[in-house]
C-alpha cells in the first residue's frame, strides 16, 4: 500500500488514554473497559436469573403455598402471595433467556474474550474499537428491553413460552396466554438486538485474531483460549443471523398477521382465526435450533479453552496434545452446525431425517472425549498447585463429563422418546451449558482478576466457594436425570397432580433445598469479588507464574496494553517445566538465551 504514511522509524507508537470519566469508563473504546462492562452486565444478569430460579424451585417444592415476600416483589403478578402457573412460566422463560443470552453468551466471550484476546495475541486493542463499544451498548440496550418485558403484563413477568419461544404459541399474541402480547414483542426485540450486538462482536473478534497478532505469534502458538474465542466468534457469526431472521419473522407474524409459522384452521380461545393460512410451526424450530445448537457451543467453548489454559498453568505442564485440542475445538464447532435436529426428534419432522441427525450427534461425542482425555493427560504427571482457579478448572472437567455424557442418551432417537422434554433434559443441559460454562466464568474471574483489577481475589473464599458450589450443583442436577426418567415433564409449575409421579416429592424437595443452598453460597463469590476489588492484596505482574502475554504487562495493564511496543513471541503458549530452563515456566516473550542464561 503505497499511500500509507509511515511514521518515523524507531518511534514508539503510544496511544494516550482518553481523558475524563465518561470517555474513560462509560463510553470507552478500550477493549479492557468494554470487557469489564460486559462482565458486570453478565454479573447483574446472572443474579437476576438466579433469583428467578430460586423462585421456581420454591414453587416446585411447595406448590401454591403463600409466601408473604412474593407480594412485595411481584405486587401484581403474585397479588395473593402465591406463584400462579402463569407467573411460573414467565419465570421459566425469563430465567432461560437471561441466562443463555446475557450470561453464558456475554461473560465468557464479551467479557473475558474482549479483555484478553488482544492482550494474549499481543495487540494494543481490538481491530475495531468503535464497533466494540457499539456492540456492548447494543447488548446493554437489549438487556434494557428484556428488563422492560418484566413489566409487560400484570399477571406475569414476561412471556410464558419458554426461552425457545415455539410458534404458534409465541406468534398468536394475548389470545394464546398472558404475557404473549407485548411481552413477546419486547422479548423477541431484545433477542434481535442481541443478535446484532453479537454479530458486531464476532466480526471484531475474527478480524482481530486474524490480523492483529504480534510478531512470532503463529497460529500454533496461540493460547487455546484464543482458539476457543475465535471458534466461538465464527459460530456466532454464522448462527446469530439465523436467529435474527427468525426474530424478524416472528415480530412480523405477531404484529402484521402474516403466515410464516401459523397454519390455517387455527381455533384459539373459542374462535376460528381467518387471517392465517398455511404456515409451518416446525419452520420456527428449524431456524431456532439451527442457531440454538451452535449457541450451546458458544456458551461452553470459551470455558473449554480456559480450562486447558488453567490446567496447564497450575499443573506446570504443557497442554497435552495441543494440536488435537485445536482441531477438537474446530470439530465441535463444525459438527455443531449439523445436529440441530436432535432437539426435534419428537417435533413431527421426517423420522428418516431424525436418524441422520442422531448419527451426526453422537459423533460430536468424539472430539468432546478427545478434550477430556487430553485434559487428563495435561494434569497427569504434573505438579498441581491447587489454587482456586485450578479447582474450578478441575471441577469443569468433572462437570463436562457428567453433563456431556448424558447426551449419549438424548442423542439417540429411540431413548429420546421417553426422555424428551423431561427433567432429564433439564439436568443434562444445565450441567453442561449452565453449570460447566458458569464454572468457566468463575475460573476466569479468579484467574484473571489480578490482571483486571490489580488485586488478588481471596484464595480461601474462592476455594470455599468452589467446594460448596460443586457439591451443590451436583446435588441439584444429577437427581434431575432420575426425575426425567420417571417421566416428570419440564415447564410444569407442579407435578403433584400426576399420580405416576407419586414418588417424586422427596426428590423435588431435595433438589429445591440443594438449589437454595447453592444459590446462597454464591454470596461468597460476590462478596469475594467486591471485597477483593478494593481490599485484596496488590497483585504482581505475573502472580501465577504463567507464560502467556497477559502476564508480561503490569496489573492492571496500561491503556494500550504493551505501551506502544509490539511484543515478540518466541515459543508456544504452554512451555512449563522445560528441561534445562532456569524457571519452570518459559514466557512466550522470552528469547531462548534469556530462558537459559538466567539459570
Amino acid at each position: 500500500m503505497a499511500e500509507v504514511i509511515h511514521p518515523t522509524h524507531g518511534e514508539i507508537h503510544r496511544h494516550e488514554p482518553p481523558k475524563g470519566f465518561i470517555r474513560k469508563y462509560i463510553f470507552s473504546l478500550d477493549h479492557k473497559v468494554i470487557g469489564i462492562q460486559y462482565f458486570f452486565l453478565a454479573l447483574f444478569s446472572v443474579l437476576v436469573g438466579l433469583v428467578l430460579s430460586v423462585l421456581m424451585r420454591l414453587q416446585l417444592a411447595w406448590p401454591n403455598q403463600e409466601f408473604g415476600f412474593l407480594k412485595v416483589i411481584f405486587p401484581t403478578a403474585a397479588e395473593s402471595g402465591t406463584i400462579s402457573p402463569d407467573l411460573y412460566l414467565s419465570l421459566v422463560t425469563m430465567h432461560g433467556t437471561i441466562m443463555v443470552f446475557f450470561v453464558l453468551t456475554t461473560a465468557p466471550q464479551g467479557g473475558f474474550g474482549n479483555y484478553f484476546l488482544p492482550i494474549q495475541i499481543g495487540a494494543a486493542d481490538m481491530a475495531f474499537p468503535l464497533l466494540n463499544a457499539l456492540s456492548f451498548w447494543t447488548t446493554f440496550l437489549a438487556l434494557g428491553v428484556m428488563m422492560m418485558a418484566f413489566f409487560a403484563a400484570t399477571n406475569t413477568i414476561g412471556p410464558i413460552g419458554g426461552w425457545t419461544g415455539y410458534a404458534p404459541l409465541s406468534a398468536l399474541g394475548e389470545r394464546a396466554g398472558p404475557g404473549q402480547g407485548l411481552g413477546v414483542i419486547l422479548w423477541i426485540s431484545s433477542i434481535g438486538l442481541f443478535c446484532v450486538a453479537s454479530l458486531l462482536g464476532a466480526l471484531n473478534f475474527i478480524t482481530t485474531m486474524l490480523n492483529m497478532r504480534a510478531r512470532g505469534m503463529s497460529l500454533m502458538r496461540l493460547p487455546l483460549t484464543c482458539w476457543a474465542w475465535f471458534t466461538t466468534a465464527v459460530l456466532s457469526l454464522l448462527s446469530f443471523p439465523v436467529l435474527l431472521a427468525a426474530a424478524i419473522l416472528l415480530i412480523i407474524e405477531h404484529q402484521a398477521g402474516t403466515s410464516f409459522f401459523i397454519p390455517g384452521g387455527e381455533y384459539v380461545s373459542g374462535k376460528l382465526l381467518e387471517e392465517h393460512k398455511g404456515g409451518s410451526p416446525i419452520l420456527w424450530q428449524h431456524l431456532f435450533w439451527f442457531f440454538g445448537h451452535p449457541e450451546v457451543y458458544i456458551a461452553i467453548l470459551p470455558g473449554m479453552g480456559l480450562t486447558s489454559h488453567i490446567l496447564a498453568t497450575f499443573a506446570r505442564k504443557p497442554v497435552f496434545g495441543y494440536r488435537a485440542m485445536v482441531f477438537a475445538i474446530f470439530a465441535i464447532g463444525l459438527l455443531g452446525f449439523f445436529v440441530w435436529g436432535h432437539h426435534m426428534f419428537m417435533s413431527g419432522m421426517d423420522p428418516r431425517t431424525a436418524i441422520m441427525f442422531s448419527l451426526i450427534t453422537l459423533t460430536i461425542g468424539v472430539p468432546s472425549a478427545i478434550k477430556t482425555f487430553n485434559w487428563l493427560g495435561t494434569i497427569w504427571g504434573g505438579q498441581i498447585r491447587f489454587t482456586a482457579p485450578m479447582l474450578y478448572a478441575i471441577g469443569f472437567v468433572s462437570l463436562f463429563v457428567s453433563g456431556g455424557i448424558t447426551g449419549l442418551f438424548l442423542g439417540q432417537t429411540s431413548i429420546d422418546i421417553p426422555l424428551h422434554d423431561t427433567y432429564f433434559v433439564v439436568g443434562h443441559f444445565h450441567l453442561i451449558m449452565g453449570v460447566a460454562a458458569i464454572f468457566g466464568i468463575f475460573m476466569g474471574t479468579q484467574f484473571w482478576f489480578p490482571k483486571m483489577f490489580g488485586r488478588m481475589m481471596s484464595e480461601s473464599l474462592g476455594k470455599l466457594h468452589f467446594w460448596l458450589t460443586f457439591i451443590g450443583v451436583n446435588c441439584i442436577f444429577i437427581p434431575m436425570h432420575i426425575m426425567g426418567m420417571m417421566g416428570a415433564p419440564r415447564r410444569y409449575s407442579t407435578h403433584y397432580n400426576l399420580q405416576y409421579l407419586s414418588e417424586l416429592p422427596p426428590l423435588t424437595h431435595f433438589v429445591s433445598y440443594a438449589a437454595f443452598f447453592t444459590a446462597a453460597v454464591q454470596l461468597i463469590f460476590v462478596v469475594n469479588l467486591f471485597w477483593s476489588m478494593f481490599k485484596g492484596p496488590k497483585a504482581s505482574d505475573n502472580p501465577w507464574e504463567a507464560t502467556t502475554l497477559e502476564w508480561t504487562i503490569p496489573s492492571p495493564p496500561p491503556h494500550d496494553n504493551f505501551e506502544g511496543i509490539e511484543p515478540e513471541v518466541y515459543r508456544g503458549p504452554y512451555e512449563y517445566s522445560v528441561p534445562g530452563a532456569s524457571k519452570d515456566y518459559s514466557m512466550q516473550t522470552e528469547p531462548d538465551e534469556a530462558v537459559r542464561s538466567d539459570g
Partner: protein
Amino acid sequence: MGKALGLMFVLLAVGTVLLFMGQNTWWFPPNHSAHGGAIDAQFMRTLVVVGIAFVGAQVALGYAVFRFGRRGDARAVYTHGSTRLELVWTLITAAIFIAIAVLGQKVWAQLHLSQAPEGAVKVNVVAQQFQWNFHYAGADNEFGKTEPRFYDDSTLNFVGVDPGDPNGRDDIQATTLLIPVNRPVELTMRSKDVIHSLFLPHMRIKQDVVPGLAIRVHFTPTQVGRYEIPCAELCGNNHFNMKSFLLVLTEDEYSDLATKADEEFKTRMGELLQQYK
C-alpha cells in the same frame, strides 16, 4: 487439597452409580407396550457404556488430582502429548459411540418408518389448550369428515365433525383414550391451536402434536389398566394441567364399548375409569 478433591470425585462416581443402579423407586414407570422393552434395553445398554465412561473419567480425574499434587520443587513431566495414544483413544471412542448410535435407531425405525399393521384400532386425537380430545369412529367404524370450520367448543364439537356427514352421526368424542389390550393402535394426531405433545410414559410414546399436521403413531399396549397422559410440550399457562387418561381395556370390555352410542359410551367410560383406578 488434592487428596480431598480426589476423594470427592470418587464419591461422586460411587454416589451416582448407586442412584442409578441400586434402587427401583426412582426409575422409569413400568413398561406396558410391545416396543417399550426394546427402548428400555437400549437405555440399559447405553447406561452401561455411559456408566463405565463416567466412572472411568471421574475416578481417573480423582486419581490424577490425588496423586499429582505439588511434590516439593520437582519439575512436572515435560511432554506435549502422544500421537499414538491420542489416535488409539479417539478411534476407540468413535467406534463405541457410532455403534451405540446405530443400535439406537432400530426401535425408532420400527416405530416410525413402518405403517401400523392391518386391522389396527384407529383413534383420532385432537389437542387444544388445555384438553385432549379423542375421536372414535363409533359403531360404523367410519370416521365422520372433520374440518376446522366445524370446531365449536360451545356445542362440544371439539374435533370439528361435519354435522352433514352421515359417517359422523355415530362418532364419539371423549376426553379419555380407550384402547384394547394387545392390539395395535394407530393414533392420528392434530392440534387446533398450538403445539402439544402426547406423552404416554407407560407406553414409551411421545409425539408432538402440531397444528397444520396430521401425525400418526402406532403402538401396542400389553397390560390393561388406567394410565395418565400428560402434555409434554409447553402449550400455555395451564400446560401442567393438561392431563387425560389412557384406559387399556380387555378385548371384551373394548368390543362391548365400541358399539355403544354416545350417552351409554360415556356412562360406561366413567364406570371403567373408576374400576381401573
